[in-house]
């Protein structure tokens, strides 16, 4: 019985830790979706780029991945702004038969990024061998006669806490600063925001940059605990949009809850059904959300707010 409880709790812990990082990935996508109604299917590829930046900083200059948080996300911010300004903005103005040209465009950008990475860095698996990679805190160190053993991996926990910190900083930015308020205004009603003197075009560019920087930060947090290879991007793009749909398009709080739900659900599937089935669980929860809860978790939050 204790063993079963131990497995369950350990799975729950790793699910929450994973979920926190997922939330950060989902946040960037939901921000872009909310403000610009753009599906960014190159989100994971941007994270892959950030991970390569962190990897090379570590390999060449021995800069700790957590320190790269100060370098990679700003670079990604610039890259995101560049993509939005030179590629996505022009397509939004083009007249075409298909309404979703912009989605296909981001797929094209993703293909270019992924394959450039393959050309330059080969498709080998890479990782940053940090000293603390296998360090962990054990329950038995603090509670001698504990009937079961739980452990808390050091890099996972640090990454999780940093993700929480970044999320809080983002919330503060959106809620308190002028730029943040302008971004939220653009998300709510583009025309009204423009009439109130918000530079909507600039906000779009900034938002795409911000979304890229967030996923770039997630990349830096992932690299101490995850392997790096060029096609990892598409996998995380899928994860990001599952979180976005699960949370409710454009909802920040929804993305956080969506990330946590997905992280826990995936850990549970991996433990109780099988490693290989975790991605199926991911998509099953996605389809279930589409069918039964089209507004995502955010719609539940809103409903509650109204009845109160």
């Amino acid at each position, binding site marked *: 019985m204790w063993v079963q409880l131990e497995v369950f709790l350990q799975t729950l812990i790793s699910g929450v830790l994973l979920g926190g990082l997922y939330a950060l990935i989902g946040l960037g996508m939901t921000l872009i*979706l909310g403000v610009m*109604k753009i*599906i960014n299917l190159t989100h994971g590829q941007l994270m892959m780029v950030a991970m390569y930046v962190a990897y090379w900083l570590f390999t060449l200059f021995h800069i700790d991945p957590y320190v790269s948080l100060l370098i990679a996300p700003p670079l990604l911010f610039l890259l995101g702004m560049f993509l939005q300004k030179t*590629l996505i903005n*022009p*397509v939004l103005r*083009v*007249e*075409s*038969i*298909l*309404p*979703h*040209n912009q*989605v*296909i*465009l981001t*797929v*094209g*950008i*993703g*293909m*270019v990024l*992924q*394959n*450039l990475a*393959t*050309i330059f860095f080969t*498709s080998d698996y890479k990782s940053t061998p940090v000293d603390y990679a296998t360090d962990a805190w054990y329950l038995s160190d603090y509670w001698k006669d504990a009937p079961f053993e739980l452990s808390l991996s050091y890099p996972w926990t640090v990454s999780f806490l940093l993700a929480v910190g970044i999320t809080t900083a983002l919330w503060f930015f959106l809620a308190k600063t002028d730029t943040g308020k302008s971004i939220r205004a653009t998300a709510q009603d583009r025309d009204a925001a423009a009439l109130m003197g918000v530079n909507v075009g600039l906000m779009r560019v900034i938002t795409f940059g911000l979304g890229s920087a967030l996923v770039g930060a997630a990349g830096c947090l992932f690299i101490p605990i995850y392997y790096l290879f060029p096609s990892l991007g*598409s996998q995380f793009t*899928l994860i990001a*949009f*599952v979180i976005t*749909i699960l949370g409710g*398009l454009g909802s920040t709080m929804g993305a956080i809850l969506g990330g946590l739900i997905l992280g826990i659900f995936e850990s549970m599937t991996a433990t109780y059904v*099988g490693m*290989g*089935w975790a*991605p*199926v669980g991911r*998509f*099953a929860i*996605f*389809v279930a959300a*589409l*069918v039964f809860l*089209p507004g995502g978790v955010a719609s539940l939050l809103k409903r509650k707010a109204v009845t109160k």
Partner: protein
Amino acid sequence: MKRFAPLIVLAAMAVLPLLGLSSYVMHLLILVIMWSVSGMAWNLLGGYTGQVSFGHAAFFGLGAYCAGLASFHLNISAWYGFPLSIPFVAATALVMGLIVLRLRGPYFVLATLALGEIMRITAENLTDLTQGNLGIMIQRTWVEKTGYYYVILAVAALTFWVVKLLAESRWGYYFVAIREDQDAAESLGINATLYKTIALTVSAVITGFSGAFYMNYMGYIDPQVVFSLGDISILTIMVVMVGGVATYWGPVVGAVIMVLLAEVIRSLPYVGTAYQTLFGVLLIVIIIYLPNGLVGDRQTLARLFKKKGAAV
């Protein structure tokens, strides 16, 4: 004259193998025709009905697996994959339609993408049935390419005819009405869900044929290949985007360009498997400058060349 163009092309294609083309050229021709079929099928749903699907690999792979599994488990010819795939693919399309066709715009795009991936991961994990990532290998029927050429040419001719028939029927006009403005179409009494389901099912079954042919022709499949998001779903979209959205010849032109381009790039030194970089660049350029594809935007293209000529 224009009315007979498809027949003339078909007749010309039918005599091509008699010229004694090399096995390599035949291989390229077969790939071009196969991708034309996938493109035409996608175009029916994406181009005419306006439902952009990122999950057509689901049907392609299902068709391929129907052929492969029949041969592997039941010991019958993999050619039975064609009739066998119809009920399986159609049923999958109907279930998929039930879930995704109520969704609009970005939701639809994302849902199809997810369903395609679900199929891949399921095929990878149902190892008892599919052998998972080991894949399935079958005995190919012919050593020579000519037989395969005529089979896929027949499928392509049939597909062209079905798409043309549908697009020019009352249903075809309903499809376009739904694409242009679903709410307006519904207010005029068009049952949008019904017609979208029809377009999806026909599109899916044809894509399944393409997959069933792939199994017979290649003799080997695994989930990573036939359910691939990049190599199947997105390549199908690219064939249509490059060639021409909602045109009869667009997918054919697109398939010619994509297959030849892939061959040329792959043969370049230092590029190797990273040929998709140039595909990505091509996709970006096409979307920005010719959003309706080479055939769809031929007027723009003609104007561009005229202007250049005038400047010289």
